């Protein structure tokens, strides 16, 4: 087992696949000469050349749409969005073309496309650069949505995405690029739709994905000192959603806290809560608790920003509420 960063995990998954499969091409802003805004693709241009590592002008609509067309004709494009906030400019290409062309062509084309980049809040990037987009994309049939929380997830989920035949929205997180973790030697592909119990516990299930998994684990560690054994379920992918693992865990713990970084209304945890109510209602000893970001555009001031995103204490408080231990 090697200890590597989330960034290195992404890089190695990409390189292993690109060495083997010439149909993989990368597109994005400043991924080549500039070496990548978050340096995920540093040295790739030198190694794979400009026909495979395509620096684009600032044209998200253009190059994401072009990548969809490349995928339809048999390439495996991997698009880097500098941040997911910029992909709104390409929303029509992702939602109306990538997600649907397979269906409305009656299955005549595949779109093996990956769009990857950082999602979620940064540090004082304010309203336009701090969004979490998963609710939007996970809503759409035709897309898969992966949200890796650890280096092993980043490596294993990207490997699976690179082998797939359907478009993948691959949500990374800027705060995670430098985090270290163990990545299994060898292939290490992690199938989509398989959640991981990243920390077992018997009193309550905390469900999270991406960076919030790390926050949930840290909350669980705090709660341990208070005699509460919290299980943390790392979803890894939102679409497909591992409903079986979710319900299995909740049936054991009889309590659930669901966590997301962004706005509460119509967010992913509403879907998770509804799934739990539909599938494990009889097992619940208390209502599902939702932990979410504040329902405001992200403020710039650091103190307000910190109030706008969930922290360990918010998760711990929700756990205590659902356990009646306030």
């Amino acid at each position, binding site marked *: 087992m090697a200890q590597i960063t989330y960034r290195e995990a992404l890089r190695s998954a990409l390189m292993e696949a690109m060495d083997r499969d010439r149909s993989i091409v990368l597109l994005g802003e400043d991924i080549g000469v500039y070496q990548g805004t978050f340096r995920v693709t540093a040295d790739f241009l030198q190694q794979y050349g400009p*026909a495979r590592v395509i620096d684009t002008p600032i*044209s998200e609509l253009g*190059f994401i749409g072009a990548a*969809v*067309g490349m995928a339809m*004709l048999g390439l495996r494009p991997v698009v880097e969005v500098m941040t997911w906030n910029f992909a709104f400019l390409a929303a029509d*290409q992702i939602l109306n*073309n990538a997600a649907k062309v*397979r269906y*409305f062509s009656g299955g005549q084309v595949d779109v093996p496309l990956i769009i990857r980049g950082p999602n979620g809040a940064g540090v004082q990037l304010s309203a336009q650069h701090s969004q979490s987009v998963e609710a939007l994309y996970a809503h759409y049939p035709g897309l898969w949505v992966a949200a890796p929380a650890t280096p092993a997830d980043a490596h294993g989920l990207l490997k699976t995405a690179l082998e797939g035949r359907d478009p993948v929205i691959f949500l990374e997180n800027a705060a995670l690029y430098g985090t270290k973790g163990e990545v299994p030697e060898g292939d290490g592909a992690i199938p989509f739709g398989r959640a991981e119990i990243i920390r077992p516990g018997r009193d309550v299930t905390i469900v999270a994905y991406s960076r919030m998994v790390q926050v949930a684990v840290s909350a669980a560690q705090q709660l341990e000192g208070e005699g509460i054994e919290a299980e943390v379920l790392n979803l890894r992918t939102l679409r497909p959603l591992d409903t079986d693992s979710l319900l299995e865990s909740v049936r054991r713990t009889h309590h659930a806290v669901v966590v997301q970084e962004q706005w509460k209304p119509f967010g992913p945890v509403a879907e998770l809560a509804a799934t739990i109510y539909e599938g494990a209602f009889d097992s619940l000893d208390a209502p599902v608790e939702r932990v979410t970001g504040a329902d405001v555009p992200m403020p710039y001031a650091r103190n307000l920003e910190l109030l706008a995103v969930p922290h360990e204490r918010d998760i711990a408080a929700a756990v205590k509420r659902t356990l009646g231990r306030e």
Partner: protein
Amino acid sequence: MKVQKPDEAIRSRPRVSETEVAASLHWYRLMVLTRRFEEEAERAFRRGKIGGYLHVYTGQEAVAAGFLAALRPDDVFFTAYRDHAHALFRGTPPGAVMAELYGKATGIAKGKGGSMHLFDVARGFYGGYGIVGGHIPLATGAAYALRYQGSDRALLCFLGDGAMHSGSFHEPVNLAALWGRDGLCPIVYIVENNKYAMGTSVARSTLVTNLAAHFDAYGIENEQIDGQDFFTVKEAADRIVARVRTTGRPYAVEVITYRFAAHGAADLFQPYRTKEEVEAARERDPILILERHLREAGVLDDERVEAVRAEADATVADALQFAETSPEPPADELERDVYHSS
């Protein structure tokens, strides 16, 4: 850059060889068939047999015919939602096209796409798109893929005049020019200027009404041609497709044409243009122009014209019969084709 006015283009129309004339009889037949097909599709729409939207190609036939006649079987093309003719010209069985409009299981897209989303990938037809301009990025990337894979296949991207003022036009054509510099984008952008974006004329959409000239801004070579004369289109198409195939660089053509029919079946009163204007445009019916050429060349006479029309009537009647009697998609088709694994 070479920019020809339509009337100059007509005057400078190339001489057509005898073999060329003989070959064009095939395209005359397809154009007559397509015209009949569209008439019957409109009728079926009014009878409630066809749902949703219906955009017919009547008046513009020589454009797609001329360009598709220049393609090899392994070449590729994309278009927007006025797409029935493109499928028929490429050889998609008329029954499979009509069945798609009827929403039947035997449709070319299993009844899942309808009129706006015809696809026949086996014949190089990659759709059929309903968002104006939305397919231009796809076609541009697809052209890159063809070249990246080492082939000399060419790609046609048909688009309307109305698509030229969206970001989904400007962003990909800039990419095409960049990629073409390295010989990696063998695409022909064919602007079918039928004068109106639904009800908004070209002059009300841009001050630069020479649409070919828009490509100058991106360094893409371009020209304007008349779209009502099959031979003019075919000559340009042969020359341009061969060039793009050789160079891997994009090229753009503004084809001046006219939509005789309403924008869509719901465009009843057409308040944006006069009856006189439409009648004047119908004077230059592409089917009649080609027919006149073929009569002059001795390939067609009254009797043969009648035979072609009768053949088209019969083919369209068969297509309607096939669509009428085909089954609806079974319920288990609902969730199929969303993902590769579904």
